């Protein structure tokens, strides 16, 4: 363990930790655009610079190891000046379309410009302009908004391990692209959207089926309902409708989702959902009340039990339903109907 001082507070932390980690451990927030605990430190965006007493210059806290006796200031005058300068430079090559940008309300660049009072860039120069890549069915890439923090590239290569995207070209022309810039649909991209979740600005965004603002939605943390990995996710809800799904860091998913969990939620609000019980009458399924449906089922159960015994009734429970629901169906079959004929789709 080592001890250092951050903003006047003593911090004890494991050797090998970064200054950023040391600060986080005592609740000192350092702004960052490119940092992600899952990635090897890459120090791309520089917004996390801090002042270390005795150091020749400001250092990037996300990639500088903390050392014993270090004295750190995270919001000193020189730090604030540097951060304002960095934001000023970033904004020089970033469209100021926050009024219509879908990321507004959850854009780290927007938040930092607000925090450090940067209204517009003081530099007037060439601005990059790229066509949006809309070839992926579920998300789009707008390189015009990219700040080149590299998070998406490293999430794809170090976390998702798909290597679909990379930095292309050099200098002012640098952008995130696919091999030969053929577009996402022709890359090895598996549409997991984990890069989209990592993007701090509006450069990678889910394709929306309807408009919403992030401040209009409620978030509900839950467990994915597809395979057995048990990924943790948040459902974004507006007007009783799930409008987007985002990954959450959980034990089993490490902040990742796949294309199904992330983008295939249309079934929830689909027009063909069953809305009323139905009973077959004269060969046709007709909508009925719950009362009538329960009567038909209960009468049939009683009739079969009388004529053929309880073992002539079988139930298939569901690996898709809740634990509690599986329990109750086994209780219905065993305790109420009186048979052990209860199974589910584990083998199929």
């Amino acid at each position, binding site marked *: 363990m080592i001890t250092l001082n951050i903003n006047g507070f003593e911090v004890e932390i494991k050797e090998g930790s970064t200054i950023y980690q040391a600060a986080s451990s005592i609740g000192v927030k350092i702004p960052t655009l490119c940092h992600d605990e899952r990635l090897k430190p890459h120090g791309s965006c520089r917004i996390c610079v801090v002042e270390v007493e005795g150091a020749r210059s400001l250092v990037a806290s996300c990639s500088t190891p903390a050392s014993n006796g270090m004295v750190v200031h995270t919001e000193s005058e020189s730090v604030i000046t540097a951060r304002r300068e960095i934001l000023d430079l970033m904004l020089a090559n970033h469209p100021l379309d926050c009024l219509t940008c879908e990321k507004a309300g959850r854009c780290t660049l927007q938040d930092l410009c607000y925090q450090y009072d940067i209204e517009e860039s003081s530099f007037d120069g060439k601005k990059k302009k790229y066509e949006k890549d809309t070839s992926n069915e579920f998300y789009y890439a707008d390189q015009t908004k990219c700040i080149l923090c590299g998070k998406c590239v490293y999430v794809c290569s170090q*976390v998702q391990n798909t290597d679909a995207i990379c930095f292309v070209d050099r200098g002012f022309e640098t952008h995130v692209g696919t091999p030969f810039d053929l577009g996402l649909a022709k890359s090895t991209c598996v549409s997991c959207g984990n890069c989209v979740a990592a993007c701090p600005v509006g450069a990678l965004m889910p*394709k929306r089926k309807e408009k919403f603002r992030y401040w209009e939605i409620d978030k509900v943390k839950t467990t994915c309902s*597809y395979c057995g990995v*048990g990924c943790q996710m948040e459902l974004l809800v507006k007007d009783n409708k799930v409008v987007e799904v985002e990954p959450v860091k959980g034990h089993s998913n490490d902040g990742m989702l796949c294309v199904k969990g992330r983008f295939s939620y249309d*079934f929830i609000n689909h027009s063909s959902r069953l*809305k009323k*019980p139905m009973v077959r009458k004269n060969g046709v399924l007709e909508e009925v009340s719950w009362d009538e449906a329960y009567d038909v089922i209960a009468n049939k159960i009683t009739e079969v039990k009388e*004529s053929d015994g309880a073992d002539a009734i*079988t139930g298939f429970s569901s690996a898709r339903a809740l634990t509690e629901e599986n329990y109750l169906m086994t209780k*219905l079959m065993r305790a109420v109907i009186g048979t052990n004929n209860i199974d589910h789709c584990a083998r199929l």
Partner: protein
Amino acid sequence: MTNGIADIQKADALFVTGSNTTESHPVIGAQIKRAARNGAKLIVADPRKIPLAEEADIFLKIKPGTSIALHNAMMNVIINEGLQDDKYIRENTENYEELVESLKKYSLEYAAEITGVEAYLIREAAIMYASAEAASILYCMGITQHTNGTETVMSLSNLALITGNIGKVGTGVNPLRGQNNVQGACDMGALPNVYTGYQPVTNTGAREKFEQAWGVKLSDKIGLTVTETFKAIDEDRVKMLYICGENPMISDPDTHHAERALDKVFLVVQDLFLTETAELADVVLPAASFAEKDGTFVNTERRIQRVRKAVEAPGEAKPDWIIFMELMNRLGYEEHFNSAEEIFEEIRQLTPQYAGVTYERIKNKGIQWPCPTLDHPGTNVLHAGKPARGAGFLKPVEHLESLEIGEDKYPLVMTTGRMLYQYHTRTMTGKTEGINLIAPELYAEINPSLAQEKGITDGEVVKVTSRRGSVTMKAKVTDRVNKEVVFVPFHWDSGANVLTNGDELDKYCKIPGLKVTGVNIEKAD
């Protein structure tokens, strides 16, 4: 899984077999790739050159249904090279001598002939697995969906036991469970032979415990599995079938047989949509989706996690538990729960593995069972220190050719599986436009030399025929499969499962041999 998912990063070697992980469990697939890139050795065995094969140190392109021969030969190599863990075997297993004797005939040459994998690769894989400090086996339906699936798992268990790769971090025999709550459904005793927590219905003590809790007399007769039910309907032994959230018209073997049975029986189906199965029902009940209710799912690493209500269910649809409760009351059994949490409280009184879990405790993070008390942290590694039964039993198992193999009329082996973009019977993914654009239809992967022999070009419509029927689909010509293998994803209706065999079942657990079907393939007329 005997070990948690995070253990994948702690293994020195990973043996992934019968699992197309990056497509069927994509988020675990990504974690396997990460482990391999960070230095773990990766051995992949699969009949197809799946994406994970590209990352593997050793890829064994095995003939479907021959895993036992592979595992036995690997163990034979391990013992011949002296790489077994003698101390672990002595202290924690029984029947080792009999196992060693049974392995002798599985020479590399013999196994190579059965599996179609070159002998030196089997040898290298065995040495790689056994030499690792901690080696983990990850498997899926490619191991289990065989008429000798249980024994195939036993052979994997033998492999882990003789190398001491069980009960420690980064090791284990780890089945990847295919559905969000298949673990929870099993834990709850949605199985014909056990109550919750795997307490046998044939055990008098267990039965008396549940009789007391539920206030009724209970049957001691083991019930029917899903796969036995359709035959029982044929034979008039079952007259009524109540299906909650399953779609056997697509997921079960031998669709024509399933359809005849579903047509004959009085059928109740409770689901989100009018599925292919619900269309045959006498009563259809509208259920709420996962986004419309509170409760829990249990994942493949035995972690009990919260599900939370985000939106209201459409129309008059209700959570399944409310439907069951109201029906129980209608049948004269008093049952009153105000929430899923109240049901969970009853579950944990009856289920030792769940006794220490409450909704409050899993508010932020799920807990892995067994969790016997309120101050127990949950269990990441099973069989720690010692196998749960005391000594791990090394049961010798023999390779057995599937009955589907060997008829001239059906010279090819069809194997089935999932693809990344669709899920199971498409009830949910089939509602997303982008998914359907990428994965629109049924197809068969066939090898280029087979295609050439049969005069089939990529994208052409072909007819695949088995003893049960014929299905037409598009050909995808690819060297992912060898010449004698055809792969068909099972997601589509009137598809792969029209061809599979529902009669021959594993003698222990009644799983059908969905991964090996004898077929022929021709250009469609």
